[in-house]
């Protein structure tokens, strides 16, 4: 199962994609950007574990943050919280699944029960 319904911003004039929020299109300058939902295969590009957090996230450590790429739209990458469970260790190249957004931004979890990509 690939990731579904990831909200991103699309320029209505030139079709460039961005991570929300973007107030103007960096390619054509248009302010007509809309949120669209995209699907695709999402993979870990890089990752880290934060142990000394900003004060507001003190009760959440340690937590994993990863840069996640969406294979279908080159150049689009998400800085995200990633949930790992059990023995499944986070690694570059592993597939993740989009689980939603909240006040922390994008959330993904490591794909379970499947061979590593």
């Amino acid at each position: 199962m690939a990731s579904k319904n990831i909200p991103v911003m699309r320029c209505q004039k030139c079709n460039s994609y961005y991570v929300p929020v973007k107030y103007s299109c960096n390619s054509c300058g248009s302010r007509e950007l809309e949120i669209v939902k995209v699907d695709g295969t999402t993979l870990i590009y890089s990752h880290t574990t934060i142990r000394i957090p900003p004060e507001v996230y003190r009760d959440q450590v340690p937590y994993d943050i990863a840069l996640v790429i969406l294979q279908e739209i080159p150049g689009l990458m998400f800085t995200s919280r990633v949930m790992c469970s059990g023995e499944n260790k986070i690694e570059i190249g592993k597939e993740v699944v989009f689980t939603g957004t909240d006040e922390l931004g994008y959330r993904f979890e490591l794909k379970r029960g499947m061979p590593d990509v």
Partner: protein
Amino acid sequence: MRGVTIIGIGSTPFGVLEGKSLKEIATIACLDAINDAGIDKNDIDAFYLGNYISGILVNQETIAPLIANSLGLRKDIACTKVEGACCSGGIACRHGFLLISGGFCDIVLVAGVEKMTSASTEKNTAAIASGMDWEQEGKTGLTFPGFFALVAQRYMYEYGCKMDHISSVCVKNRSNGVKNPRARFRKEVTLEDVLKGKQIVDPLRLHDCCPVSDGAAALVLCRSDWADKFTKKPIDILGAGQGLGTSTAYEMPNLVSIGATVEAARQAYKMSGIKPGDVDVVELHDCFSIAEVVDCEDLGFFEKGRGAFAAFDGETRIGGKIPINPSGGLLSKGHPVGATGAGQMYEICKQLRGEHENQVKDAEIGLVHNLGGSGAVSTVHILRRR
């Protein structure tokens, strides 16, 4: 374009400057630079001060006029603070350079200052994190150390090196810092110490990260044709560049290269006519061990993917192919954020004057690289002794 020359330098030690205020340490560094130049303070035509977070950390803003009045500078001159996170000091130097080079001023005082150790760790963490893009990336809980950890993880994946190679930067810089009286840490560490250190932000450990510090540094810049009147050891600024990178990790086209550095270096090399191979000594922005690795490649000293192996093989030690951070760098000196860029300029001037405590033999051409934010802004200066 007129030539610009450094005729005076001053710096406090970097570290815990107990009982000394931001105003006091900035005043001391500026006075040292003015006295070193042998000018009268009334000769100064403008003042640029680099600072990052004095408002949050010590509740003091409007600090360029504050320091100018502490020094008793003329009332008809522009006194301006500039901010670009960890690059604030480098930006202040470049603005001084531009004013003289453009013919608007003859003598400019530039400085950088930060007072950090009197504030709590929580306050420091929050203040430093204010340099992130909060609307986009800070909210995820990513930190500056986290940003460089992402870079390190990807770098190892792409180039097949290990933390052994990346962390050899810490061993080299800590060894260099032993001789530097301005460094916060003056004790050597072994590679084993670093690799067994406390895990801070995987894969970076304690010694991979520079410490916070208090500190101030200052330089007197002068039109080149006047420099001989004041000093026997003028240091000419041959090139100065400033580049814009991205404000978030996810927008970087390539996580193992920092675009702001590449652009600042391109400008400085072009202006000076100097090539990486001509440079004798470098002070670059090693806020983390991995930062030095990426920087030394982006500045053109090594091919992409070679930087960590080069440090491991001793090519960046004094006596190696290109000595990098003989001062001990940020990893030894500490990182008083707004002061760092001016402090790096100070260290290279000492090298080119032949007066450094950890001298690179016969150094004639030096390069200074300062980096701010998560790769958002960078300055590069190329200096030469006459």
